[in-house]
């Protein structure tokens, strides 16, 4: 069996940050909606959008993700029953996805949308939840990023 030396030798790391490649990678993430992995990771979508946007901001290319589309996605994940943001439309609200939603809005200078849409007070109001611990075990398995 012959192996080429090129295949066996690790390539030297690039000497500079390959910004166009990183931007293209992040940009492509939302275009894989026909893949099974896309649908198996909907519970992390809001977090993923935040991570992708944060990376693009650091890379100096925040305009790659459309501002209004980001805001529309965030509010499509609003869950009125639990007064918070879920990770995907129709999901229960969770404090982790809610933080990511607020961070996305903050990065896009759009926190005032919370007032416009009348949800800011509902987000922070102090109303104690009654809880069910039934799925605590399962949640601890699936909720880690």
């Amino acid at each position, binding site marked *: 069996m012959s192996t080429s030396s090129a295949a066996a030798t690790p390539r030297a790391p690039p000497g500079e940050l390959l910004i166009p490649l990183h931007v293209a990678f992040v940009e492509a993430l939302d275009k894989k909606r026909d893949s099974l992995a896309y649908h198996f990771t909907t519970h992390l979508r809001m977090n993923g959008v935040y991570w992708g946007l944060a990376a693009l901001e650091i890379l100096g290319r925040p305009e790659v993700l459309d501002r209004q589309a980001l805001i529309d996605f965030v509010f499509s994940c609003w869950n009125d*029953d*639990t*007064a*918070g*943001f879920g990770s995907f439309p129709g999901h*229960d*609200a*969770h*404090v*982790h996805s*809610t*933080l990511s939603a*607020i*961070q996305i809005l*903050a990065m896009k200078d759009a*926190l005032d949308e*919370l007032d416009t849409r009348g949800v*800011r007070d*509902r*987000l*922070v*109001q*102090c*109303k*104690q*939840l*009654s*809880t*069910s*611990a*039934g*799925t*605590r075990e399962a*949640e*601890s398995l699936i*909720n880690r990023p």
Partner: protein
Amino acid sequence: MISGGAVLLGLQLPSGAIQGDKWGEIDTRFLYCAVSALAHLGALDQLDRDRTVRYILACHNPDGGFGTDPGAESHAAQGTLLSNLANLETAC
């Protein structure tokens, strides 16, 4: 179940812990999320500062780290709690 609860302050328990959602998992990472979110919203003054700080310190271990709960082993992710303490120090 619940109706009309809120995902931030409404998730804080009498112990000071903050659960992730209505289903009840508790982890100091969720406390970080809630404090950070409230700071973004300018609403930290609505949080029970003493109860929250007391709970964070209860998760502090002799090795210098913080765990997910009181008595749980230290984990690097829980170092984010230090930024919570910094936030609460200046905001309240």
